[in-house]
């Protein structure tokens, strides 16, 4: 929990003296990887971050998009991996709390939460099961209490996360453009700390998160209190409505050290504060502890002297403490006192701007051979394989998870969880569609193509609701960046995302980098997670009931791309092979066509093909609607492949559409005109999911049996092992 020798000597030469112990703590927190992004910052600039809808303001912790009619949405993504791996309930819950406060900092009301969870193999590993169960409860207890619906996410299990956990939380806010907080401060303004008391929990949390998880440093885990967070939300919104906030910042990693130094640095001001004025949870805390404590549910507000009384009255109404801890000065120093004694007096420019690094990178040796295919053991009964896949933790329905989240509160949820993407109605009559996606199995085999695949998959999901992607959030999670091979995978993923974002003109509106994700048995697989926000101007495609005689159509090519697929990894226990790649032009053509046919009202359901391939995607439609389907593998567009490969290839850019017979002709005309690869492959009806090739039956399943397995297997695994 300290600076590297080189950093210490840099600090000394910058301030021209030995730092005090408080200064050392402050700088160590702020220069940690977690707060400073020192390994990644130089490279992140390659991502496109502007666009016609993007609103940039000083000091925001969340991205802002203009959705028209005077309204904006805000969005951000965070992770809480290290704490969740030690204490999953508190770690996951405080992860929700942190990202919610980022949304609140812009002056917008949080309206939705999304969570991406990753653990070890829960079938074999009891600890992974325990981590999973408690992380879900932590998110549920926190989000439910706040009254913010958790409406989407994803869960994945992979041995690379054994003894570890990735808990990613994204949040979306909504508000009037005129109510956005325009951060500013004048000399003499007051610095106010609002919310929970400052205690000894979470001391050094950001350094903890910037190191490998070798020892369990329990004091670094924060304690959640959603009730206080709820009161803070209401108090901040009331204060905002009365125009009492000049500037606002959430206290997250690095606690007061980061909030004070970053606010001062962004606004070009100095701040003088007295740690004795900070409402503490226990007496006798040292200034160092107060400055780096990561106690939760705290906000830093800059207000003017004459507004303080009104702000205090609002806090009193909600029974939350607010303390005036300091004031704004001219210059750029953060001056930390205890009573009259100075403990730190240092330029915020130095504190908030760690020296950025240019880490070396090298292509990992394992990539030379990983894409090599292997001769698979032939499978005689693909129906059995299908049932096994349907019950596998990565493919089984996640209803056990989202059934514990209040996904209706706020009465905006038009398309509920469990579909491709969730859709919220907005006050201006438009709709927001959101999805987060990751795929470490693909990213491990090909960091660049895998990352692009995550991006495209999240886009496909929002497209399936009729939404046009307008913004992206990225969360880049990798192992130790000091290892050149790991850093190479980080750079490759980032380059891939940049290329896709540029081609599709989807700006990155926010993100997060989480490094040092190491487990006792090594680094995690590269795990970029992509969140896509899509906007629907008129009407979303709410999946309609599929009925007998409806047609099933596939769009996009099925290729020999099974590397990283559930079929290879779960059934054949083989890690390697051809990773799916995205042809940008084809991707765009397919996306545009699907949006077009949705807008024309021709289809009942659109569903993307991803994990488990065509076989699972088609079965999901059947199981959700409790109806059978007879599907022929004879005319699937793409490579000529064996039946198992057609069924389970995870090629991108593919969609399944369900439509009434009477709309088929019109659909065909549009798809032909746009030269999209498509084929009518099945007809719904009966109680069986059947795949045939020629006259041969390949798969034959009872819908009822498959549905029961799909819905119950994850819950049963968690509850009974």
């Amino acid at each position: 929990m300290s600076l590297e020798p080189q950093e210490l000597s840099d600090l000394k030469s910058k301030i021209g003296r030995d730092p005090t112990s408080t200064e050392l703590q402050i700088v160590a927190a702020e220069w940690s990887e977690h707060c400073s992004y020192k390994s990644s910052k130089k490279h992140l600039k390659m991502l496109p971050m502007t666009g016609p809808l993007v609103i940039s303001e000083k000091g925001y912790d969340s991205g802002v998009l203009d959705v028209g009619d005077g309204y904006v949405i805000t969005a951000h993504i965070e992770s809480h991996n290290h704490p969740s791996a030690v204490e999953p309930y508190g770690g996951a819950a405080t992860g929700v709390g942190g990202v919610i406060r980022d949304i609140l900092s812009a002056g917008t009301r949080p309206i939705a939460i999304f969570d991406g969870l990753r653990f070890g193999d829960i079938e074999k590993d009891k600890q992974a099961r325990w981590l999973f169960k408690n992380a879900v409860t932590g998110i549920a207890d926190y989000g439910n209490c706040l009254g913010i619906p958790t409406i989407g996410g994803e869960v994945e299990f992979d041995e690379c996360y054994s003894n570890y956990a990735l808990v990613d939380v994204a949040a979306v806010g909504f508000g009037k453009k005129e109510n956005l907080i325009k951060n500013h401060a004048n000399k003499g303004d007051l610095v106010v700390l609002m919310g929970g008391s400052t205690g000894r929990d979470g001391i050094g949390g950001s350094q903890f998160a910037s190191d490998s998880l070798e020892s369990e440093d329990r004091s670094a885990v924060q304690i959640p209190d959603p009730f206080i967070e709820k009161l803070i939300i209401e108090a901040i919104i009331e204060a905002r409505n009365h125009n009492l906030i000049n500037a606002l910042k959430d206290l997250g990693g690095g606690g007061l050290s980061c909030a004070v130094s970053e606010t001062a640095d962004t606004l070009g001001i100095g701040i003088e504060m007295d740690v004795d004025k900070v409402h503490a949870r226990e007496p006798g805390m040292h200034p160092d502890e107060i400055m780096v404590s990561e106690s939760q549910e705290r906000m830093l507000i800059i207000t003017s002297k004459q507004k303080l009384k009104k702000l205090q009255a609002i806090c009193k109404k909600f029974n939350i403490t607010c303390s005036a801890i300091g004031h704004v000065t001219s210059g750029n120093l953060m001056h930390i006192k205890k009573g009259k004694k100075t403990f730190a007096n240092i330029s915020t420019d130095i504190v908030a701007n760690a020296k950025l690094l240019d880490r070396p990178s090298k292509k990992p040796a394992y990539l030379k051979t990983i894409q090599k295919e292997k001769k698979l053991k032939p499978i005689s009964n693909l129906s059995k394989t299908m049932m096994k896949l349907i019950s596998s933790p990565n493919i089984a329905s996640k209803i056990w998870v989202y059934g514990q989240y209040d996904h209706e509160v706020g009465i905006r949820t038009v398309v509920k969880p469990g579909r491709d993407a969730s859709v919220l109605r907005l006050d201006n009559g438009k709709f927001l569609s959101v999805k987060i996606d990751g795929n470490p199995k693909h990213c491990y085999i090909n960091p660049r193509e895998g990352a692009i695949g995550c991006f495209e998959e999240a886009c496909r999901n929002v497209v399936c609701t009729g939404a046009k992607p307008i913004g992206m959030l990225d969360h880049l999670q990798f192992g130790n960046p000091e290892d050149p091979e790991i850093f190479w995978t980080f750079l490759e993923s980032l380059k891939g995302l940049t290329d896709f974002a540029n081609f599709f003109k989807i700006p990155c509106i926010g993100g997060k980098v989480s490094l040092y994700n190491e487990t006792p048995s090594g680094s995690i697989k590269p795990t970029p997670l992509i969140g896509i926000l899509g906007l629907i101007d008129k009407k979303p495609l709410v999946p309609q009931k599929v009925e007998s005689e409806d047609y099933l159509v596939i769009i996009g090519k099925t290729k020999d791309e099974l590397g990283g697929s559930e079929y290879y990894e779960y059934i054949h226990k083989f890690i390697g092979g051809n990773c799916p790649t995205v042809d940008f032009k084809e991707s765009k053509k397919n996306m545009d066509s699907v949006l077009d046919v949705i807008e024309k009202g021709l289809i009942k359901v659109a569903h993307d093909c991803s994990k488990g391939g065509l076989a699972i995607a088609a079965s999901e439609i059947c199981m959700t609607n409790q109806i059978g389907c007879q599907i022929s593998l004879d005319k699937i567009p793409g490579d000529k492949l064996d039946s198992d490969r057609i069924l389970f290839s995870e090629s991108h850019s593919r969609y399944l559409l369900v439509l009434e017979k009477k709309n088929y002709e019109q659909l065909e005309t549009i798809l032909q005109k746009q030269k999209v690869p498509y084929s009518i492959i099945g007809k719904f009806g009966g109680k069986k999911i059947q795949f045939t090739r020629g006259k041969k039956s390949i798969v034959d399943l009872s819908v009822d049996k498959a549905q029961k397995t799909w819905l119950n297997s994850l819950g049963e695994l968690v509850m009974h092992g």
Partner: protein
Amino acid sequence: MKVGVVVFPGSNCDRDMFHVLTDVFNFDAQYFWHEKGLPQNIDAVILPGGFSYGDRLRAGAIAAHSPVIKDVQKMAEKGIPILGVCNGFQILVESELLPGVLLKNNSLNFMCEWTNLIVENNKTPFTGQFKLKQKIPIPIANGEGRYFVDDNTLKKLKKNNQIVFRYDKIINGSSDRIAGVCNEDGNVVGMMPHPERAVESEINPIDNKPSSLIFESLLSSMGVEN
């Protein structure tokens, strides 16, 4: 029709309820912070859902001691219609305005899902427009939603026609599948499911008309033509 929506620290369905009352059914609704008294001229009171005081101790236990509850009690005695939804129901039970208790669901988990209610009493101000045994598709979202009464109280509830809603199947282990009850006079009703989440077709995937009757019943009980 003036309807008061009581807001406690931690209420989180207050704005949803307010929207439905004003924008969907044209009530004259007003928020009342729990520390403020309720004025005399109010025609109905709604206690919305949420996590008052973070569900500390027991759901609704602390809110039941809020200053506003005294006024709610007085209004209940006067026969003014009072509806508690989810946490509002828990508060009414904890204030002893309604019988029974609400325990953790059998699954021990928070449950958010769509379910069906059966109307068992259509004589309350919130159910007058229903046919007996009418089905209402509606979502629940609670962790402590299992209604429990002892056998004697259950007999009394049945005798006095105090069971207002039942679930159509066993979902959380509540006594006699009870989802909502009323006081002996019938003017105070508590229910675990969320009618405010079910009255707009845009967000109701099944049928929004049945749940709308809860609000239309209130309108008609006050003699307002719909």
